[in-house]
């Protein structure tokens, strides 16, 4: 209890040096938060996506069509745009348990006296079996039997509030012939804007090959539904797709078999590899900007450490007096630790509040938020290491200096 009282005494008196320590710490927190932000954003997205699609990310594979296939499927060549042999090759491959497909494309409906356009996400039944049920699904509202229940995004909910019955118009392009569909639907619920959206897509830069983190779809008007042959008839699934292997299948062997079977049709990668690529490209893209902040953070933390060292050396007299009055060295060390930890907690709070503002004003990235777990761990770790180093160093120095200046003063 008395340690606290002495601590309070140390804290209650205002010194410029404490302000300096505080400012350097706050700067360190801000800069480190900014440095860790790209990785933090990636980690957040990854966690959100993994929360939504409970796959075994170690063993799951992803098939991406090659560009020539993709272009042909868009009707740019004479070739057939749909390639059933690709799916057959995947499905017939030994060790494949399920293929998760989805279709995404533009769709529209006549609502509010005009045409309302939105994005349509249609999941195959196999894909749907891996998505946990929509948490908000109140699937069949009354008087809407015979209509396909769809989930709408918050941005689409203005036009299609829950319970609205409408006819969804869409054009499936991956058919041999372009196929126009009109599907009677009912808005059954609103997609939670906090959750990732499952996906199988072509995307090398974000995690969109596996799913979309909230910030990527939050503002988009879109509707999502699970494929039902009663409404769509038999449709050939588009690529890309996620491939789930048998429980005990050897992933690398399966990958080799798939690669052989699919040849030039496209590329088979594992999800971990996709994630690594995304992280690498995130890092290399933000590197030049981040290096500046790394430098600033190092300057701030070095300034803090060096100044702390000097500040304690300057207070050698105070420590010598405490020592004479019977305070152990251990307790003085602890006291200084506590004092600096208190200072750090205050600085961290200020730093967290200021980080988004600094990021917006100097890095011009709107999506930068306060500290995530990563930033907190990094700044906390950096702080603790620096604190312990300079405290230990200054105390070792102090012990001799205090003895000489105080006890052995005079003749």
């Amino acid at each position, binding site marked *: *209890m*008395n340690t606290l*009282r*002495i601590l309070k005494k140390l804290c209650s008196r205002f010194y410029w040096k404490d302000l300096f320590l505080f400012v350097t710490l706050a700067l360190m927190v801000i800069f480190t938060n900014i440095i860790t932000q790209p990785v933090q954003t990636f980690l957040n997205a990854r966690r959100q996506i993994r929360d939504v699609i409970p796959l075994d990310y170690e063993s799951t594979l992803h098939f991406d069509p090659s560009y020539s296939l993709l272009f042909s499927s868009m009707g740019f060549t004479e070739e057939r745009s749909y390639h059933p042999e690709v799916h057959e090759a995947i499905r017939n491959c030994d060790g494949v348990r399920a293929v998760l497909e989805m279709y995404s494309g533009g769709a529209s409906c006549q609502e509010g006296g005009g045409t309302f356009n939105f994005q349509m996400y249609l999941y195959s039944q196999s894909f749907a079996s891996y998505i946990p049920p929509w948490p908000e699904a109140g699937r069949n509202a009354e008087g809407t039997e015979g209509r396909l229940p769809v989930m709408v995004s918050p941005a689409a909910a203005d036009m299609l509030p829950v319970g609205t019955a409408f006819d969804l118009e869409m054009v499936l392009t991956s058919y041999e012939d372009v196929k126009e569909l009109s599907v009677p639907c009912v808005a059954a619920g609103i997609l939670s804007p906090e959750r990732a959206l499952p996906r199988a897509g072509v995307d090398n830069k974000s995690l969109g090959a596996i799913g979309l983190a909230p910030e990527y779809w939050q503002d988009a008007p879109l509707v999502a539904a699970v494929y039902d042959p009663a409404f769509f008839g038999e449709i050939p699934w588009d690529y890309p797709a996620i491939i789930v292997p048998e429980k005990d299948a050897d992933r690398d062997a399966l990958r080799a078999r798939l690669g052989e079977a699919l040849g030039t049709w496209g590329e088979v990668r594992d999800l971990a590899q996709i994630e690594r690529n995304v992280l690498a490209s995130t890092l290399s893209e933000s590197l030049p900007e981040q290096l500046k902040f790394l430098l600033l953070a190092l300057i701030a933390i070095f300034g803090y450490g060096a100044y702390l060292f000097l500040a304690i050396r300057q207070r050698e*007299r*105070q420590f*010598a*007096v*405490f*020592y*004479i*009055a*019977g*305070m*152990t*060295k*251990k307790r003085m060390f602890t006291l200084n630790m506590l004092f600096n930890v208190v200072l750090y907690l205050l600085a961290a709070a200020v730093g967290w509040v200021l980080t988004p503002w600094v990021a917006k004003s100097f890095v011009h990235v709107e999506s930068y938020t306060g500290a995530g777990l990563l930033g907190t761990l990094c700044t906390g770790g950096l702080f603790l290491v620096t604190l312990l180093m300079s405290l230990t160093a200054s105390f070792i120095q102090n012990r001799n200096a205090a*003895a000489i200046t*105080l*006890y*052995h*003063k*005079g*003749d």
Partner: protein
Amino acid sequence: MITLKDVSKNYNVGKQTEVRALRDANLEVADGDFISVTGPSGSGKSTLLHILAGLDAPTSGTYFFKDIDVTKASDKVKCGLRNRQIGIILQDFGLLGDDTALENVCLPLTIGGMRRKQALERGKSVLEQVGIAELAEKRVNQLSGGQRQRVAVARALVQNASLLLADEPTGALDSRNTSSLMDLFEALNASGMTIIIVTHNIAAAQRTPISYSIIDGVLRQERRT
């Protein structure tokens, strides 16, 4: 109370500049003794006092305070001794200049874990005892040498220590202040406190019943009355 046996202290051991500040000092102090140690500058007086206070460890020899082997004691034990049993007055007083006299006096109590209110009461009564009650709220920086000396004495007394160690307590005082400080020490001694003062002031030394001299680190008893 104190047994020093063949205690030596060398500084800068193993270096060209090695100093033998104390050489095989032997000292017996009984409860209630009032001792002065005199010697010229650099003779080892402060060194002796710092060893007695547990601030410095001897290079060789043994030091018992009551039944504690101080040479082998931990930092915690020695700090406990200084906090409760040994009051120390250092050559430059060892006060915190930015703090008030009362705060300085209460420091050992705060460190020892006494409640704030109780500590302040005790601090005030000790300041009264040394005759400077009216200076309690003054910052030490604003006090004269003689007043600071009394604050230092008050701090040494605040825990009712059984031993008082004073390094050149009269060094910064004129003869009138010196004599009144010695009066105070005599009164404390009369009430049972053991006191050891280190000084090069002969007049002050003559007022103690027991006196030692120290020259070039050699400690010798001069007088016992």
